Structures are given as structure tokens and as C-alpha cells.
């Protein structure tokens, strides 16, 4: 009764979202750390918005934005022949927006917990900003990086409202595990719903358990 497709799709979505967000979030978090200008405060606020907004707000605006009846959707369709709604790419964009703070915040708080002199010391030794980030700053905030990665992954696995609004329940494209559960419950197929739900439950538990035991180990390693 249960198909593996929704689970694979969920995994694919979560992994892609995590990878994309990591690439975006590291430089962004680095830029946000340190002196705050007005512009930075605005960006910081925008980054944090998905924390407080219901997913339906994001879903609603994406639905409007993606529609070919509006300029953005129209432009995408005219120039690139892309329609984002009901597609995996659309879902990916939504997930990236929706999980933004879950990646940026841990990395940012990790970076700001480092002494500013660490960065300056590296500059004084002739290292570029990028070398400083990759060789000095990031290696010293590994637990924060891991937290960001795991939270983003888990949050994407658990994403539901946005997917429900812009997904259209298309098998292999937008029918994620959380949607499949909802669907099976509605169709009174409690048995299949139970299997999907059980798998997600076990997965979430395993991921978080791994994170906490790793961070514990890192903590102990600091003081050996």
C-alpha cells in the first residue's frame, strides 16, 4: 500500500534545501556578524521572518508570485519557459525561504561567539577574508554548522503547510511524505499513514539524537 516515492522525494528535497542553504547561509551569516548598519538590521529581520510567519503566508505569496497571471511568473514563463508552481523547483525555493533562519541563525551565533581578534589575527598574517572564513572561523564553529545543517534538514522533512499550498500533490514532484500522510488519513487509509508517520518519527529521532551526541562529544573534547 505504501510507496517509497514520497519518502525519497522528501529526502531529496531536504538534502537539496540543506545544501543550497549552507552555501548561501555561510557568507550571509559572516556578513551579518559584526558591526550592524541599518541595512544589516533590515536583512537580519527578513532572514528571521519565516520563524514567526505561518507557512501559509509564505505559501500564499509564492502562489501569487509563481502564477503566470502575475509579472514574476509571467516573466519566468516567457523567458525561461519555467513554471514553478506544482514543481519540485518551486518546492525547493519555498523550502529554502522557509528554512532560512534555521541555517543562518546557528551559524551566525557561532561566528559571533568567536573573539573578533581571531579574524584580525588572520588578516594580520596576510590571509584573505575567504581564507580566514574557511581555515579559521568555520573550523572553530563546527557544532554550530552541524546544528544549522541538521535543523534545516529536519525542518524541511517536517514541512507541510507550504507544500500543501503550492505543491498540488503531484507524485514524484511535490507529493512529499508529510503530504502523503495527510492524504492517506483523509482517504481513511490509516495503515499506510501509520507507516509513513512511523518512518518520519524514527528518522527525526535518529537525526536529533546524532546531533546531540555529536555536540556533547565536541563539548567534552574542548576540555580534555
Amino acid at each position, binding site marked *: 500500500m505504501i510507496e517509497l516515492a514520497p519518502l525519497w522525494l522528501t529526502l531529496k528535497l531536504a538534502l537539496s534545501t540543506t545544501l543550497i542553504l549552507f552555501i548561501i547561509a555561510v557568507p550571509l551569516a559572516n556578513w551579518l556578524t559584526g558591526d550592524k548598519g541599518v541595512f544589516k538590521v533590515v536583512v537580519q529581520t527578513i532572514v528571521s521572518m519565516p520563524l514567526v510567519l505561518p507557512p501559509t503566508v509564505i505559501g500564499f505569496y509564492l502562489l501569487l508570485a509563481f502564477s*503566470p497571471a502575475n509579472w514574476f511568473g509571467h516573466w519566468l514563463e516567457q523567458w525561461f519557459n519555467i513554471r514553478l*508552481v506544482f514543481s519540485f523547483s518551486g518546492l525547493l525555493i519555498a523550502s529554502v525561504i522557509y528554512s532560512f533562519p534555521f541555517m543562518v541563525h546557528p551559524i551566525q551565533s557561532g561566528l559571533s561567539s568567536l573573539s573578533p581578534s581571531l579574524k584580525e589575527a588572520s588578516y594580520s598574517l596576510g590571509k584573505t577574508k575567504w581564507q580566514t572564513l574557511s581555515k579559521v572561523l568555520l573550523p572553530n564553529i563546527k557544532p554550530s554548522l552541524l546544528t544549522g545543517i541538521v535543523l534545516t534538514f529536519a525542518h524541511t522533512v517536517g514541512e507541510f503547510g507550504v507544500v500543501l499550498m503550492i505543491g*498540488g*500533490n*503531484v507524485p514524484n514532484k511535490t507529493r512529499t511524505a508529510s503530504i502523503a500522510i495527510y*492524504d492517506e488519513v483523509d*482517504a*481513511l487509509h490509516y495503515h499506510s499513514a501509520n507507516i509513513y508517520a512511523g518512518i518520519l518519527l524514527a528518522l527525526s529521532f535518529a537525526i536529533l539524537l546524532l546531533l546531540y551526541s555529536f555536540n556533547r562529544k565536541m563539548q567534552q573534547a574542548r576540555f580534555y
Partner: protein
Amino acid sequence: MNKILLALLLAIQTLSLWAQPKITVAVAANMQYTIQELITEYNKTDKTKIEVVLGASGKLTQQIQNGAPFDIFISADKEFPQKLAENKLTLEAPKVYAQGLLVLWSARPNIQPTKDLKLLLGSNIKNIAIANPKTAPYGHAAEAILKKYGLYDKVSPKLVTGESISQTSQFIVTQNADIGFTAKSIVISKETQGKGKWVELNAQDYPPIEQSAALLKHAKQNNEAAAKKFYTFLYSAKAKTIYNKFGYIVK
């Protein structure tokens, strides 16, 4: 402190005494505009407050089975109320109140829906909205007509599924879906007037969407008389005029 509490309790008591009798009706999404008119008509003679919960029929059935406090269920088909009757969740056997019609609808300026559905194969149609066939009777009917015309396998990659007929209609109106199947009652309502073009599909080519309603067991604990009265009204001549107006067939 105790006095304040007592006063508060009293106030709540009085408020609920003053409150008009209230019943809750679970309504299939295709009836979302029709039910408003039914209630307006009903309230001309009876001030009973009627609360509406909209959803796909299957979804509502699921909720009722899990103890949702609904007094009446107005479904989009016969099967779901029947299932509730079998599970002894209704007070009497469900009855058909109207028959719904399936339409093909598009809000995109350059798409003209046709009865034969052949246009769905065209490359200008990237996606087709349909209500979830498992839970929404109109979705089930749409799937049936596509199969009958031998189009289902060819167009199934284009299908996007709305969780109810309302979400399906929303996909069509926002033009996120190029075209889609919905209920006639939705396209002829005031709210969607002038938004795109639609065509009524051949009613012989899909199983009749006979919509029935049921008086639910929950009414017994709530306000059985009020619920029973509104339930009876659903089958009255006045109600039938309204069904007609919204494009339903009434026998």
C-alpha cells in the same frame, strides 16, 4: 476574588443563554457558495445560527468518524454519507438533495475549454487541476471522464491535485493551473463570474454526482430539533430553487 469569579461565571452563563441556538454543518466544498444562499433564505424565517465547515467530502467524513462536532453533513456524493450510516453515525438514512455537474474551466486568456477534452493534450497546457479523486467526488468524476475518453494515461503527468474542489478552483483562478475540472456550482457563482471560460461536460460520460446529506448523531447532544428543521429545509421547494440557480439538477 470569589465574587469576581462568580460574576464572571454568571456572565458566561447568561451570554450562552442569550446566544441564539446554533448548529454546525459540514459542507462539501462545491457547495461553498450555494450554502450561503441557503442559509440566508433559511434565516428569513428561522434565526438559528448555522456554522459552516467547508472541506472535501472525504476529509469531512474522516473528521466525523473521529468525533467532529457536526450536526449535519452535506456531501458531494452518496458514498461518504452512506459510509457514515453504516458506521451508525447518522440519525436516519442519508438522502440525495441534488445532482452536481462537472465542468472544465480555464482562467488563462488564450485557452478555450472544449467538451471533448482533446485540448488537454496540447503543449500549451502544462498542468491540469483536479480535486483529489480519493476524497473529492468531483475529482473522482473528472478521473472517470478522462479514463472514458482514453486520455487519462496521457495527461496524468500534468495532473495537479487540490485537496478539495475549493483549492482546485483556486489553482485555476490564480492561473497557476492552466485548466482544471470543477463543479458547475462554483463557476456560475457571483464570486467567479467573468474569471475565464468554462464548458459543461457530458453528464453521461461520468458516474452521476448524486449529492446526499445526512443528519448526524452529534445533533442528538446538541440541538436536535433545530438541526432536524434545517435538514428538512434542505429538501424543500425553496432549497430546490436555489440548487437550480447554482447549476445543480434537482429531481
